C-alpha cells in the first residue's frame, strides 16, 4: 500500500512541478503583462494543487492533512483575488493589453 502511495505522490509532485515550470516558461515567452497573468495562473492553480495532493498522500489521516487542506483553501481564495487586483490596477494605471484581436 505504501508503495502505491509513494508512486501516487511521485506522479503528483512531478506533474505539479511540470505545470509550475511551464508557468515559468510562459512568464518569459508571452508578450505582455496581461497574457503573463494567464501563465502565472497555470502554476498557481493546477501546479500548486498537484503538489499539495502529492503531500496529502504522504501525510495520510493526520492534523498535517488538515493544514494542507487549509493551505489549499487559502490558495483558492487568495490566488484569483491577487490576480484580479494586479490586473485591475494595471488597467486603471493606464497599461493597455497588447496584440489584441480586433472584432
Amino acid at each position, binding site marked *: 500500500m505504501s508503495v502505491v502511495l509513494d508512486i501516487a505522490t511521485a506522479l503528483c509532485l512531478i506533474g505539479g512541478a511540470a505545470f509550475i515550470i511551464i508557468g515559468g516558461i510562459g512568464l518569459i515567452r508571452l508578450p505582455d503583462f496581461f497574457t503573463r497573468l494567464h501563465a502565472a495562473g497555470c502554476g498557481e492553480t493546477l501546479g500548486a494543487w498537484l503538489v499539495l495532493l502529492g503531500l496529502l498522500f504522504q501525510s495520510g489521516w493526520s492534523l498535517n492533512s488538515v493544514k494542507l487542506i487549509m493551505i489549499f483553501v487559502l490558495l483558492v481564495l487568495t490566488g*484569483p483575488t491577487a490576480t484580479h487586483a494586479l490586473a485591475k490596477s494595471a488597467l486603471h494605471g493606464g497599461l493597455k493589453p*497588447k496584440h489584441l484581436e480586433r472584432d
Partner: protein
Amino acid sequence: MARSLYLLIFLAIIWLLLSGHYTPLLLGLGAASCLLVWYISERMDLVDHEEHPLHLHPIRLILYWGWLGGEVVKSNIDVARRIIDPNLPIQPKLLRVRTSQKTELGQVIYANSITLTPGTVSIDLEGYEIEVHALAADPAEALLDGEMDRRVSAVERPQPEDPRSGQR
C-alpha cells in the same frame, strides 16, 4: 450576537486544528488569543451580514466546486499546451460578460471562478458586467456560452437583507 459567536467558535476550531498541542498552558494561550481576536473584530465591526454561509446552497456549492475543479484542470492543460507550442497560438481578447447573480457574493464567486481558470482573467467589475481578458478565442467563447454564469447563479440563495436582492 449569534453571528459573532460563530466567529469565536470558528476561530477556536481553527486554533485547535493548527496547534496539535493540547497541554493546559497552550490551550489557555489559544483561548486567550481567540478571545482577543474576537474582541478586536467586534470593536472593528468586521462581522457583517455576509459572514454567514447562509447565502449559498451547501450541496450545490460542493457540486459547483467539483465542476469548477474539472474546468480548471481542462483549461490548465489548454494553456500549458499553448505556452509550450513553438508557434505560441494565442489571440488575446478583451470581452464583457453579463452576470445574472443576484448577490454581491455570487458576483464575487463568478469573477473569482473566471480568474481561477487559466486562460481568462476578470479585470473589472461594473454593475452587472465583468470585463475579461482572454488568452485565446476558445476560452473566451466557452465563457460567453454562459454555463459558468448559470451554475454560479444556481448556487446562490439570496437573503432579505442582501442589498441587491429583489432588484432584478
